[in-house]
């Protein structure tokens, strides 16, 4: 029996963060990635395809997000430097497996918020400039008065710190995100 519309929307919303993230890796623009998710949701609800199982819907959503993201990049930026299709497919497979994790996406977002709140102000500011305000690293560098390589390094370490903090929170461990990342 085909999934009903409320099943479709519930399934897509439960995987929204992963689908949007998959699109974001290609377009590297948060609002465009969000638009892609919204468009594919409208398509799915509008009967663009019939889905028998949730896994089938999620697979369709990831493939559709990838195609729409690549089209967006082609339309907006012409020739561009992008990841190989083979890499994107590997990532999609792994995201699909992530869906089997017991923790809802919303809990991970909440954990991330708490971990960010424990970061020292300069570290949080780097993240906010880059991801809340979506400023390129060059601008983050100028605004923070630090070198560009230092921004790359700080962001890469902050991502790792937050990942560890979120995992600890999701598994009930003690959060320890409150150290300066330099």
């Amino acid at each position, binding site marked *: 029996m085909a999934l009903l519309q409320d099943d479709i*929307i*519930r399934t897509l*919303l439960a995987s929204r*963060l*992963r689908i949007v*993230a*998959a699109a*974001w*890796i290609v377009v*590297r623009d*948060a*609002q*465009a*990635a*969000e638009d892609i998710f*919204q*468009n594919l*949701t*409208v398509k799915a*609800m*509008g009967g663009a395809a019939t889905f028998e199982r949730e896994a089938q819907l999620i697979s369709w959503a990831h493939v559709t997000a990838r195609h729409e993201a690549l089209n967006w990049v082609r339309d907006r930026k012409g020739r561009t*430097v*992008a*990841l*190989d299709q*083979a*890499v994107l497919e*590997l*990532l999609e497979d*792994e995201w699909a497996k992530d869906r089997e994790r017991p923790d809802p*996406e*919303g809990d991970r*977002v*909440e954990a*991330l*918020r708490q971990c*960010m*709140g424990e970061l020292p102000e300069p570290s*949080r*500011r780097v*993240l*906010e400039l880059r*991801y*809340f*305000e*979506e*400023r*390129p*690293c*060059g*601008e983050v560098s100028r605004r923070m008065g630090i070198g560009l*390589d230092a921004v*790359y*390094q700080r*962001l*890469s*370490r902050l*991502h*790792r710190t*937050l990942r560890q903090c979120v995992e600890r929170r999701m598994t009930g461990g003690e959060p320890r995100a409150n150290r300066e990342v330099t």
Partner: protein
Amino acid sequence: MTRDERDMLLVRYLDGSASVHEVESLNALLKDDPEARASLREMAGQAVAMADLARERAIHMPPARTEPSEPTSKRRKWYGRLAVAAMLLIGVGLGVWQLRSRAEEVTVAQVSGAVSWASEGGQPQGGLTEGARVRAGTITVEGAASSAKLAFRDGSTITLMGDSELALSGDSRKRLTLRRGALTADVHPQPAGSPMVVRTPTAEIEVLGTRFLLLASPGQSTLSVEAGIVRLRRLVDGGSVDVTSGHVFVATLDTAAKLEPLRLPPAPTKWRQTFDQPPPSTWQGEWVAADASNPGRLRNVLDVSYRRGDGTVVPAHVVTVRSISGDLAAVQPDSLLRLRLRTAKRVNLVVLVGLHHPAGGFAGTFQADFQPQDLRPDPTGWCPLQIPMTKLKAGMKDYPTLPPGGQIFLVYVACYFPDAGLEISEVSIDPPPAP
């Protein structure tokens, strides 16, 4: 490659700053290394989650606050809202997702002169640069020769030219307020039921996809439509009128004025202005009436040339002549701009013209610099200056060439020394001389 090097490369890829060669290396790495893929997925997931947190903050805080505040204690409201709204969508069968809770992002595509930005409730920030992305707030253009081009995500563009102030709303629609000044807009087709809306002190217009020029002052708004249809609502009485391609309508506070657009006359190829009468208030220059030995003229006044990084102003001493409702004259590359001017001191001058495309839309500014020795006074002490359009150089990189048939809407003459005593008694635009 160490873990640090790998993650920095991922950050650079996501920033868009990795080279082709580096992305090739990254592709090879990602194919073989599950941990690298996990890092990339984690970074992307965190980035999207942080964008959600930013949206949630925008919902709970006054819009467009760019400075961060402490996280709120309200949790998972965003997801709750999504779910509820999604169910509503199913219920009413809407085809368009209506959940974009934050203001649409606009890219500053081009800046010339003094252009500043203030987020809603924030202080003006000078030095707005090309590539900057803004949401809700006010963009201010200072100086007759300054301009700013804004690009929306759907490709629609708006160019502010000369002293202008435009507010972008905090909601997700294209809702703008032109408090004063001039803008040209090239608006791509908008979603049904969601037009771009531009409000001025005297009018509100709805745009579904068109090109137009809009001028706003406290008591008057002038809409010239170059393509498509724009619906204008006069704020004084709510009367509305559809302004079609090739027409102009002036909305004032006079309710007795007919709601009838007028056909735009074609721009002349020849135009001449002397200053025997006081000029319109939108021109810049102190009017000096004719006397026994001199014709009527405009004397330079101070204007903003640009702002330094610290916000201080670099002034210019200028005389400007601009069209009130459209364009002064259409020009070809070999048309001539003629000025009759004089200065009290030997100073360098800048002559700049602003153009619209013949089919509408901003076409850039073009300028020429003149040394004191270029000015040769006639027996009356006035200097005739004849400038072929071919001698003007592009002032903006996005508009490198003068479009044939382009229409001049602004003539700007400036010097940068105090007490230079620049005066202009005549401006004319003439077609190419007959062969």
